[in-house]
């Protein structure tokens, strides 16, 4: 059988679905192997890169051409004279390069033809990588945290110049700790808490009020010697701050126990605001908006960081430097953060931690198993709040001044963003998100290279664009990883092998 020439086939005369085949050997019907179309051949690797590079160059050139009149020339006013013309070809080149590189990267990754689109419920490659690296990640992260101040001193060349970096480390670690604390409530128990800053405030004010209290100072001066309270107040008030914050966590917990989801979020938000407004308006106790100042500084377990003869430097044979206190503060917050992490890990392996996660998964099933959900929710609120209280006391002793200004809703939102961005329930994720968010925000202050003449010129203030860049970065991360940086859940116990549970199976709770 010989097919007629293609052009002669009237439309519609072919069986649907079969293309005209010209050189088919006679006797072989369509559909047998001889007539099957060749299997799709994967595009040659070289050609993919080649076409991507061509595309990048072409789009870069196009961008350059388009932007040349728009960006490259600029009319400037020079005093009273006529308009002058300045040239900004460097900026055009930068834009063109950005477009070219972005297109190149996209062509080689996301837009690549024949790229396998991942569906399924298996943990993603990223999650698998994190899981594989997890055993090494924790010690590496911890050793880096310990070595960080010394690295800062070495790299910045001295104690005093390293102050900025050590301060930054303290700042980031405070948020790591707050993130881990809130992670218990939001990530494990699945209770959306928008008022976490309230417990931070309770901790900070507890320490501030107790350490500056005159009667307490006199009491301890009479029994244990002058200066005792100044030297020891932080170490004695730290547990008190945690306990009081936990107590307030229970107070918040009771009214919100019946609430779920959005309603729970609104009430916790209101609770955070109530605490702040009380701090502003109860002037006789909290000194109102003026705040509490002259909080005693931290001591090295009773040894003050000053230049006196029994100060830290003199006692340990060092030259006095105000940086000793800062570095000690760094290790205190590191210790507190590690305590938070260890307690959380331990609690997750105990019935109460498992009950928190079960509560997030299904509250009704929990009740059918005899778990008292009221008590379980309250312990989650109280435990999370306690670590918030510890962090608050640390904040007060570091800044040595507290005012309601420091405890706005923005703080709660940032801490919640850290937990959500990190992946709810994952400690490494939350730590990474805190570093990214807090450290990254801070690093965006250092964009002075954009002031170069060939870019935006000296009048440009890059720090103004900090929040904009930051917002874009957040959106990008959430598009790329909607369930946070580390979205898979590691089981607390296993029989043969610890397998990560994919995020698609883990519920988010919020009730």
């Amino acid at each position, binding site marked *: 059988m010989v097919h007629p020439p293609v052009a002669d086939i009237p439309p519609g005369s072919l069986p649907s679905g079969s293309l005209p085949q010209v050189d088919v050997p006679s006797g072989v019907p369509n559909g047998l192997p001889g007539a099957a179309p060749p299997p799709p051949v994967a595009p040659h690797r070289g050609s993919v890169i080649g076409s991507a590079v061509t595309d990048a160059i072409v789009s870069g050139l196009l961008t350059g051409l388009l932007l040349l009149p728009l960006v490259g020339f600029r009319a400037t006013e020079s005093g009273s004279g006529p308009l002058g013309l300045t040239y900004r070809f460097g900026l055009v080149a930068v834009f063109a390069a950005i477009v070219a590189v972005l297109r190149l990267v996209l062509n080689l990754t996301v837009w690549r033809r024949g790229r396998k689109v991942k569906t399924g*419920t298996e943990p993603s490659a990223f999650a698998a990588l994190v899981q594989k690296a997890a055993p090494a990640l924790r010690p590496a992260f911890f050793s880096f945290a310990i070595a960080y101040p010394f690295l800062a001193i070495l790299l910045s060349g001295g104690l005093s110049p390293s102050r900025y970096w050590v301060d930054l480390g303290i700042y980031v670690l405070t948020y790591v700790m707050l993130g881990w604390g809130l992670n218990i409530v939001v990530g494990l128990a699945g209770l959306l808490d928008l008022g976490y800053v309230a417990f931070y405030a309770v901790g900070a004010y507890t320490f501030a009020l107790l350490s500056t209290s005159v009667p307490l100072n006199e009491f301890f001066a009479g029994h244990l010697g002058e200066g005792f309270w100044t030297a020891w107040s932080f170490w004695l008030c730290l547990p008190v701050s945690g306990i009081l914050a936990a107590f307030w966590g229970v107070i918040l917990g009771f009214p919100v126990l019946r609430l779920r989801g959005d309603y729970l979020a609104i009430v916790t938000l209101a609770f955070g605001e109530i605490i702040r407004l009380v701090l502003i308006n109860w002037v006789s106790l909290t000194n109102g908006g003026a705040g509490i100042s002259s909080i005693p500084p931290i001591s090295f377990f009773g040894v003050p960081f000053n230049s006196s003869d029994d100060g830290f430097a003199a006692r340990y044979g060092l030259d006095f430097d105000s940086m000793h206190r800062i570095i000690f503060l760094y290790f205190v917050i590191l210790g507190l953060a590690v305590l938070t992490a260890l307690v959380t890990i*331990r*609690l997750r392996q*105990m*019935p*109460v931690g*498992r*009950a928190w*996660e*079960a509560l*997030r*998964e*299904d509250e*009704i*099933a*929990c*009740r*059918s*198993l*005899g*778990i*008292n*959900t009221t*008590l*379980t929710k309250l*312990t989650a609120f109280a435990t999370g709040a306690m670590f918030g209280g510890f962090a608050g006391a640390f904040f007060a002793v570091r800044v040595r001044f507290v005012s309601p200004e420091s405890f706005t809703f923005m703080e709660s939102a940032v801490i919640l963003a850290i937990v959500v961005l990190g992946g709810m329930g994952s400690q490494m994720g939350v730590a990474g998100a805190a570093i990214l968010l807090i450290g990254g925000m801070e690093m965006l202050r250092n964009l002075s290279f954009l002031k170069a003449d060939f870019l935006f010129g000296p009048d440009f203030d890059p720090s103004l664009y900090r929040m904009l860049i930051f917002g874009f970065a957040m959106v990008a991360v959430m598009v790329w990883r909607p369930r946070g940086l580390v979205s898979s*859940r590691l*089981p*607390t*116990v*296993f*029989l*043969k*092998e*610890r*397998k990560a*549970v*994919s995020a698609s*199976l*883990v*519920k988010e709770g919020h009730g």
Partner: protein
Amino acid sequence: MASLDPVAGARAPILAVDHLSMRFGGLIAVNDVSFVAGRGEVTAVIGPNGAGKTTVFNCITGFYKPTTGRLALFHGGAATPEELDAVTASGLAWGRTAAGALYLLERLPDHKVASWARVARTFQNIRLFSGMTVLENLLVAQHMSLTSAGLLNPAALLNLPSWKRQQKGAMDKALYWLNQIGLVERADDPAGDLPYGDQRRLEIARAMCTNPVLLCLDEPAAGLNPRESAALNELLLSIRRDHDTSILLIEHDMSVVMEISDHVVVLEYGCKIADGTPDEVRNDPKVIASYLGVEEDEAAVVEAEVGA
């Protein structure tokens, strides 16, 4: 107070439901239902859709507070009517009896029905902790026995040997049930990844890990194929045989009901229409009428036709 159901006169009861009614606004979902579930027996509650079976279950397990009625659960052995009346009059939720203890379930909140009265349940639409592994599901179920020394037990916080022993016991129990339901190989997989039939059996195993005296199963065979259904029968019979647990189940699948239940209660429009052994119920004209949708006087004809 009303006496126990005359039908159950000879049986030792584990649960006595007396004049149970439940209203939702103007709707009477359960209307004056009384029955008895026997100790060591499988009692089935059957009925057409909307008959109020799940409402009865939710009342028994404390998820609903019944409008009227008494739900008495007996630990150890049945209480005498005098003991039952004394506890009812005392206003307390439970009391000791000569044989053991007596709980009035309508007075207990849902989690205490599970933890004190030891009534476990499963759900019509499976409620597993899908993001937790199979093993974790079985450990969460042992929450109450593991937290007998307090929620923040210091021995557990410090991981002392006494706690490790307790933890080992919990693992052994979980393993025992994994063996019973044949899911040892999948212990470390998330529960949400299991096939439907396995999820059903896991939910039953999870309920059994709470050491219940009464296990309430809400349509355990729903959505199972015949082979899975047979495996379920096997599991339920082994529970009744090897454990001191009585079973109360809601079921549509007549092969399950007729094969394994010792006693059947039939509900229709919130009222009890029959109560007896599977054979008695099968031959009850009212039941046939309600299931096949014919008038009562025609039931005899239908009965002859189906050869029941």
